[in-house]
Structures are given as structure tokens and as C-alpha cells.
């Protein structure tokens, strides 16, 4: 394990998009020029005062930032240990952290002069966030969504359609998020002259893991400032759920150089690691190459990607962002799991004790945070990323309860 403090985390990825052995650009030559173009544009704009000001303005007045850092007193009491603070990304416009990134990428799309955006989506939150910014900028929008996910997330499908997006159900492969991403890549390579691809997580070929992280890092920058305001020091621990890992890296990244802040990424344990039915590549996968980057994957002995399982569609992905793969290997972040049952319990618990309905994805983080809090002291502080609200999940939970809504 490398000692935190020995590495300056702000200098990653390197020039070729690698985080240690992970990341990079594993795509067909047909996509390279589009990625080069995006990278050149992003390098030019990311520190450009006008671009930064436009992004900050949108975050404040369109997204509604800063999002509060809320002390969950009754939850803390019930957990019996460290204080649990919730970073309320659920209060953002469109109901999740995803919009931080789509607002940023929409500004890039506008600069590129392209008239059409495409996106992949699993639970539909990124699709909704993409359709939202497209509507606002008057851009044509196509969202690829696995046919299975279209069925289990019908409210979000309708929201995207109301926003003027075309939703394309993807029938290939396992008909879930990974296949939607394949299809979006195919669209992009075909229509690259007029199309900007808004990737929704910190995966994919360089520079996507970097720029999606940068746009979401507003979460951690605010949490840092708010921690100092509320309790006069940095948090003792950060907790966030990890599917692709965009909300987690958004919270973690501004704290990575603070060696005393412990970090926990919570993967979807599904029906339990032993069952094989889960979506926890960092806990039970091996490094490989998918969707343009090298990272931990769920795959079989022949290197074929296998189907994952989680009660939350947003975590149901066989890969994970390459920066997380690296942070695991060097020991900077600990990656744990919460299974379906623990997540559902946390969903109900937070709803009943705090009046906050969390997304099933975020419920994984809440579940682990309660366990963690119990092992810590009352004067310590945990910041949990409440990455999204759970309204979209009430049908899933009702079905589990055998209730027709």
C-alpha cells in the first residue's frame, strides 16, 4: 500500500489518460480523432475563466447549488456512534448528482458547435439529466437504454420523452447499461460530425473519466467547505455508492490529498458476493478492458463480460471507473459492499427517520455508513453522499412489497 501523502492525486490521470495501470484509450481507431478533439477542447476550456464562470453560473442558478450538508440527527442516534452528515445531491434539479456532469458536458457540446447529443443510461437519471440540458440548449437528443431497463424504469423513460428526447431501447447483449453504452459508441462513431456523446459516469475512454470527475468534483469541494463551517474540521470518513463511480469520485477527489480522511466506496452486493449475483467488480472482479478503459470487470474465464445483478439499476454495471480501480490497488479508498436487503432496509430507515426518500443507489451508501458510524466515536464525522432521490424507485420497492401503485 502506498502511503497517502506520497502521491499528489490532483496530477492524475497522466497525459495519456492513465491512473496507474488503469484507464487509457481502448477504442477502435474510428473513435480516436473524436476523442482527440474532445480532449483538446477540454484542455483549452477547463481553466478558461469564461467557461468556468458559465459552469458555476449554471450550477448555482439552474442546478440549485450548493446542495446542503445536512446532519441526520435521528439516523445518527439510531446508528449509535459517529455523526452522519448527508450531502444532499438529491436536492439538485432532476434529482441526482448526474446533472452536475451533464451541465458541464452540455457547455462543451455548445462550444463544439454540434447540434445533437447522445447519452447512455441505466436507471434513467443520466438520461433525464442529458435530455434536460439538451432541452435547455435546443439540442437534438437521443438516449440509449437497455430494453430491460426501459421496462423497469418507465417513469424516467416518460420523463425523457416529455423533455423531447428520443429513447432507443437496446435489444443487444444483456439489454442493460453496458449494452446501451456499446450502442451509444456505435452511434457516435457513425454520426461524429454533428454529435456530442455525453457519457454519464467516470468510465469510458480518456478524457471522459477525467472530465466527468472534474464536473462532479463540485460535490467534494462544497462538502469540504461545509465541513469546516459546520464542525470546524475535515470529516473523518466519506462514504458513497459506486456503480461506475461518478458520485463517489466527485465527493472523494477534493479530499484525496488529505491523508487523514478515510474513504469508503460501496458497491452493490446484490444477493451477496458468494451468490455471484452482484455488481461488485472491485470486490469480486479482475482487471480487464471494456468500454474504452482498463479497469476491474465482472467477466468469465474466457474474458466475456457477465451479467450483473443489483436491486438498483444505476449500480447494475460490470465495470467501474479506472480511477477507482487505481485507488483500490494503492489502498487510498476501501471498497466494500452493501447487498440488496441492506440497501432496502436503509431506504426504509432513512425515509422513516429523516423524511428523506433516497435513491436505491444512495441507499447502499447509507447502509454502510450506519455500520461504520457504529464503529466510530460520537465526536467523529462521516459525510455520506446522498447522490439521488428515490421517487424513481417507489415502483421497484412497491413491487418487492407486493403492492400495486
Amino acid at each position, binding site marked *: 500500500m502506498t502511503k497517502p501523502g506520497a502521491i499528489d492525486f490532483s496530477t492524475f490521470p497522466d497525459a495519456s489518460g492513465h491512473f496507474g495501470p488503469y484507464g487509457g484509450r481502448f477504442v477502435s481507431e474510428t473513435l480516436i480523432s473524436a476523442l482527440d478533439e474532445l480532449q483538446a477542447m477540454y484542455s483549452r476550456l477547463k481553466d478558461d475563466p469564461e467557461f468556468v464562470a458559465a459552469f458555476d453560473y449554471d450550477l448555482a442558478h439552474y442546478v440549485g447549488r450548493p446542495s446542503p450538508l445536512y446532519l441526520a440527527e435521528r439516523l445518527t442516534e439510531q446508528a449509535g456512534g459517529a455523526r452522519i452528515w448527508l450531502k444532499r445531491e438529491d436536492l439538485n434539479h432532476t434529482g441526482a448528482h448526474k446533472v452536475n456532469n451533464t451541465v458541464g458536458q452540455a457547455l462543451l457540446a455548445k462550444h463544439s458547435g454540434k447540434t445533437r447529443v447522445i447519452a447512455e443510461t441505466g436507471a434513467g437519471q443520466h438520461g433525464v439529466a442529458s435530455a434536460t440540458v439538451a432541452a435547455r440548449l435546443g439540442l437534438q437528443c437521443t438516449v440509449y437504454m437497455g430494453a430491460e431497463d426501459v421496462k423497469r424504469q418507465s417513469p424516467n423513460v416518460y420523463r425523457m420523452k416529455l423533455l423531447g428526447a428520443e429513447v432507443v431501447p437496446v435489444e443487444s*447483449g444483456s439489454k442493460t447499461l453496458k*449494452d446501451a453504452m*456499446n450502442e451509444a459508441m456505435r452511434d457516435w*462513431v457513425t454520426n461524429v460530425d454533428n454529435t456530442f456523446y455525453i457519457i454519464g459516469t467516470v468510465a469510458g475512454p480518456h478524457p471522459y473519466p477525467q472530465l466527468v470527475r472534474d464536473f462532479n468534483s463540485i460535490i467534494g469541494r462544497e462538502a469540504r467547505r461545509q465541513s469546516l463551517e459546520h464542525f470546524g474540521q475535515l470529516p473523518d470518513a466519506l462514504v458513497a455508492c459506486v456503480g461506475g463511480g461518478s458520485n463517489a469520485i466527485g465527493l472523494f477527489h477534493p479530499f484525496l490529498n488529505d491523508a487523514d480522511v478515510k474513504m469508503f466506496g460501496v458497491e452493490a452486493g446484490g444477493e451477496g458476493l458468494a451468490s455471484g449475483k452482484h455488481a461488485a467488480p472491485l470486490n469480486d472482479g479482475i482487471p*480487464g*478492458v471494456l468500454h474504452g478503459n482498463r479497469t476491474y470487470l465482472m*467477466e468469465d474465464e*474466457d474474458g*466475456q463480460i457477465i451479467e450483473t445483478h443489483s436491486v438498483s439499476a444505476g449500480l447494475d454495471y460490470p465495470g467501474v471507473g479506472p480511477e477507482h480501480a487505481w485507488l483500490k490497488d494503492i489502498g487510498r479508498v476501501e471498497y466494500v459492499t452493501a447487498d440488496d436487503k441492506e440497501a432496502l432496509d436503509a431506504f426504509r430507515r432513512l425515509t422513516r427517520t429523516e423524511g428523506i426518500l433516497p435513491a436505491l443507489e444512495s441507499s447502499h451508501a447509507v447502509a454502510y455508513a450506519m455500520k461504520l458510524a457504529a464503529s466510530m466515536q460520537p465526536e467523529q464525522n462521516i459525510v455520506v453522499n446522498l447522490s439521488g432521490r428515490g421517487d424513481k424507485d417507489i415502483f421497484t420497492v412497491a413491487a418487492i412489497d407486493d403492492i400495486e401503485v
Partner: protein
Amino acid sequence: MTEQNRIDRRFSRLRGEGRKALVTYIVAGDGGLENTVPLMHQLVASGADMIELGVPFSDPMAEGPVIQKGHERALASGASLRKCLATVREFRQVDEETPVILMGYANPIQRMGEREFADAALDAGVDGALTVDLPAEEAGPLNSLLAERNLRNIFLLTPTTTEERIREITGLASGFVYYVSLKGVTGAGHLDLDSVRDNLEHIRRFTDLPLCVGFGIKDGASARSVSAHGDGAVVGSVLVTAVNEAADLVAAKERVGAIVSEMREALDR
């Protein structure tokens, strides 16, 4: 001559004869694992110069719907990288001359291990590899492992590849260069012949390697047009469609044979 790679040998023979290469693609295991070797022999009998054997992958990102479904069917019939290698070994028991290239994606090779893959490929009688999602900047280690074994590494060039990259890629490439004729996925249908001609002339300034053109080649006429400015044509989706639509192996051999013969005649005309 035994040291020479079959791909090089075939191109040098074709150049001597003033003919163009016909490179044919099918997915290993599509239509049933046991049918792949007979189909490969049929391709050769009907006039194919080389076989690109598609190694099925669960997430074939660069393929259009036709070849994607070929990969899915092949996986359903139990195909894998190891079984592809066994297929080539079986093919070699009868055919010692026709070059075979494994075309696939990086992850199955990563899982096997690049060194083990290179050893196994050599041992099975494979002549080269084309790994779609392993562009020049990530290809270094595999490229060396293949070169050490006298195996060729085929790279893609596209209409959007910059001059700087053309230099870099042709510096790594061996066997031949696969020019992707259009922006899109395999099997797309908007071939622009003027652009193909201009780009091949441009690429020719940087390499003496044979240039083969693929993506969007559907019949003898399109194969003949694109290869007029290069050294050969690659055909895939129409063959994968033929294999899929055939009721059994006899029918598949007949359909594939007819397509390949027609292309061969057009190229040799």
C-alpha cells in the same frame, strides 16, 4: 521460405500476379462450432485469399447489428478465444497455405494473457491478429510479442486518422493495413469512393505495406471499386448474413461460396 509469414507470402504472390487480395471474415462458432472449419475451407475453395476469423466478444463495440448478432450466436454456441485457436489448428491440418488472422477485442486476450495468446496463436497456425480496441498507444506489448514470433499485427486506419497517427501506426503495423472506408460500424452502407481513393493515395506516402479496404463492401462491384486504389478488399457482414440465413451447413457453404466467387471474379476481371 519457411520463415516467411503466410500473409507476406500471399501478398507477394498476388503482387507478382497483378491481382488483388480478397479477405473474408466470418465469426468463429457462428452457425455452430463444428461448422466453422468447413466454412473456412469453402471460403478458400471459392477464391478467398485470406480468412479473418472473428473471435466473438460479449461487447463488440465497433460492429454493426449484423456482426453483433453473429458474435451473440457464436457465444451461445459455446465459442471462445481458446476454441477459435482450436478451430485454426483443425483448419491447418488440411490447409497449410491460406493466411488466417484473428480479429477480435482486447479483453479475451487480456484474460488469457498476451504472452500466452501469442504463443498459442503461433502454435495453432495463426498468422496475424487484428485487435479492434487496441489502438497504437495501447498496442506496444502485444505488438512486440507477436513480432518476436513472426506473427503480423494488423492495424486500422480511418478517414479521420491524422497524418501524425498514420506515421505512428504504419510504424507499428505489419502484414497489411486495414483501411476503414467510412465513419461508422461494420456493415454500414455509405461508401464514398472518391474519399477512399484520396485517402489510400495519402496513406501510400507513408508505407509500403499492402492496403486493404473494408467496411461497406457488399459485392463484386464494390470490392472491385475500392481495391482499384489499394491491394485488396475485406468482406464481412454479407458473409455473416449468409451464414445466418442458411438453414444448414450445406446451404451456408453454397451461399457463402456464391458471394465469394462473384467477388473473386470481379476482382480478377
